């Protein structure tokens, strides 16, 4: 077992770090304050291949691996949680399911431009009455009599990249069947929906605590006709498709959480060396030293789990438990580390200019979206007790 990165991964990390420092960091405060989607940065990331890192070259991607992708999200999140989630939602939640379940025609039509950076992707599962409980999904898709189109009706909420995306993976129920106990159960299917499809509009823009620049919108479908060939995967297989997609997504969010934690720690290490109290830098106090030691150890533990999950995605068919552990750990570490970093900053930590307060606000969502920490515990314990 070798825990050192090889040269290509080292160089890729250097690239992401360089890009994050030069292109992303200077805009992070503005993106947060104004809730402005970082379109210019996204255009640059599209140009330099950041939007298709783990996708094979034949489908317009970079032909790298999940680890490289995770490192990209991590480095972006060190300076801007918003920019990181744009990449994560696009790659894990839109490109990945088309890569895994798409037909050759769907890959050519949608995956290629998504991975090449010509289009931006999003994913819609959550609804006002359905988050962790997927059976609550009300969005419905009906096949027209001639079998040529699906008609979507319903709405999705809290959708990342909401109004900015071009292509959406939408989960809707297509059938109601009786389960073994004779209860009615919804069977879901996944669909690829293009922006500007008649009947597809946007509702409320969410005003959020953190990741404020990410475009989080409600999606509304009213008699929205989509071609039959835009069914992704088999009819009725939407739930496993969504769950598998979220397994991958959790690695992205875990990497985002890791980056937020590591970024806050980096800032704090710099700050405690400069800040003077009682005639010496606060880094000279043992409380500061021990706190930093604890935080650095937790960040490194989270990093190992995130990288392990990324490698598991590369080498294994199933990686649900690894992804859940990585996300559970990294998200909780992000919340703890950012909170303690704000404390180490003292009063300045509460001031926006110093950015660790933003990181603390950004960290919170990583414990919630793409499966709350409680859901991750269900996945992990479910595997233990099966």
């Amino acid at each position, binding site marked *: 077992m070798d825990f050192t990165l090889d*040269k290509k991964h080292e*160089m890729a990390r250097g690239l992401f770090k*360089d*890009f994050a420092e030069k292109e992303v960091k200077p805009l992070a405060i503005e993106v947060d304050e104004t809730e402005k989607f970082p379109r210019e940065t996204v255009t640059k990331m599209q140009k*330099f291949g950041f939007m298709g890192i783990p996708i094979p070259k034949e489908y317009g991607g970079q*032909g*790298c691996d999940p680890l490289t992708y995770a490192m990209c999200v991590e480095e972006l999140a060190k300076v801007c949680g918003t920019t990181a989630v744009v990449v994560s939602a696009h790659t894990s939640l839109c490109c990945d399911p088309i890569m895994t379940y798409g037909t050759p025609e769907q890959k050519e039509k949608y995956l290629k431009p998504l991975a090449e950076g010509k289009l931006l992707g999003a994913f819609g599962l959550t609804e006002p009455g359905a988050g962790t409980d997927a059976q609550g999904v009300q969005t419905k898709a009906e096949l027209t009599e001639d079998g040529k189109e699906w008609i979507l009706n319903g709405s999705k909420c809290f959708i990342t990249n909401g109004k900015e995306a071009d292509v959406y993976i939408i989960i809707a129920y297509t059938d109601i069947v009786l389960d073994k106990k004779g209860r009615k159960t919804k069977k879901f299917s996944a669909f690829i929906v293009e922006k500007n499809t008649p009947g597809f509009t946007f509702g409320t823009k969410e005003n959020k605590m953190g990741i404020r620049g990410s475009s989080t919108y409600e999606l509304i479908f009213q008699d929205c006709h989509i071609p039959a060939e835009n069914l992704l995967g088999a009819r009725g297989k939407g739930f496993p498709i969504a769950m598998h997609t979220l397994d991958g997504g959790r690695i992205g969010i875990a990497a985002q959480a890791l980056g937020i934690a590591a970024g806050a720690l980096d800032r704090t290490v710099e700050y405690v060396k400069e800040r003077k109290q009682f005639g010496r830098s606060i880094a000279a106090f043992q409380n500061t030293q021990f706190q930093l030691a604890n935080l650095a150890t937790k960040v490194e533990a989270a990093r190992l789990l995130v990288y392990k999950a990324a490698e598991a995605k590369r080498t294994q068919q199933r990686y649900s438990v690894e992804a859940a552990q990585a996300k559970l750990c990294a998200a909780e570490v992000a919340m703890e580390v950012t909170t303690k970093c704000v404390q180490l900053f003292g009063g300045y930590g509460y001031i926006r200019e110093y950015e660790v307060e933003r990181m603390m606000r950004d960290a919170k969502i990583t414990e919630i979206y793409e499966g709350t920490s409680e859901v991750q515990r269900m996945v992990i314990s479910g595997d233990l007790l099966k």
Partner: protein
Amino acid sequence: MKIVVCIKQVPDTKGGVKFKPDGTLDRAAMLAIMNPDDKAGLEAALRIKDEDPENTEVTVLTMGLPKADDVLREAIAMGADKGLLITDRVLGGADTWATSSTIAGALKNMEYDLIITGRQAIDGDTAQVGPQIAEHLQLPVISYAEEIKVDRDAKTVKVKRQYDDRYHILTAKLPCLVTALAELAEPRYMTPGGIFDAYDNQDLVTVWGRDKLDVEDKNIGKAGSPTVIAKASDKVAKGKGETVTPDSPAAAVDYIVGKLEEQHVI
């Protein structure tokens, strides 16, 4: 169209500078980056390639320690087609004369239409190697390029050259050598896939030792270097300077202007 870009791996000044006892740089002990002027030269070459990718080949060449392989792979990850690493113990400790002789010795065994080098490297700051290579190869040289345009049909290159308070627009027949300024072009980022390609295809970088070079022994390495370094040191800390507190802003201006006149700055 074949373009060779000469690049150098230089110490990253952020990592501190370390010297060997003989005064030459201890390159193995320092963090390394691609020299900024060379990177701009590479970007210029890649832009020429962007105009006609099918018919343009960009080769990056460097002389250095085996670890300089990384800087070639970085260039390939940015878009260069292949790299050539010139490395041999007998080439160590070279000054600009020995370096340019060695690189010219490699270029004599290569095909090229245009050679681009950086103006100067941030470690030595001599700005000599580029023009010296041109001299060894009997090529026209245009230095301090801020803009490079190639006319493939006429087989010429048009260069906007920085010159004190003005620019020169110069045209030269190919083959020729151009030295590039960092201002020439903002270098593009590598792509993640480019990095993977650069390392997954080990053959993209060729390694040449002394035996592959068309150069005389007397012109290589430390022994072939006429320059002798008397003494080298890291940056010397500056003194505290002079602190004055004039009575008014006008007095402060008078004081500063007086000092500047005294130093013949104005």
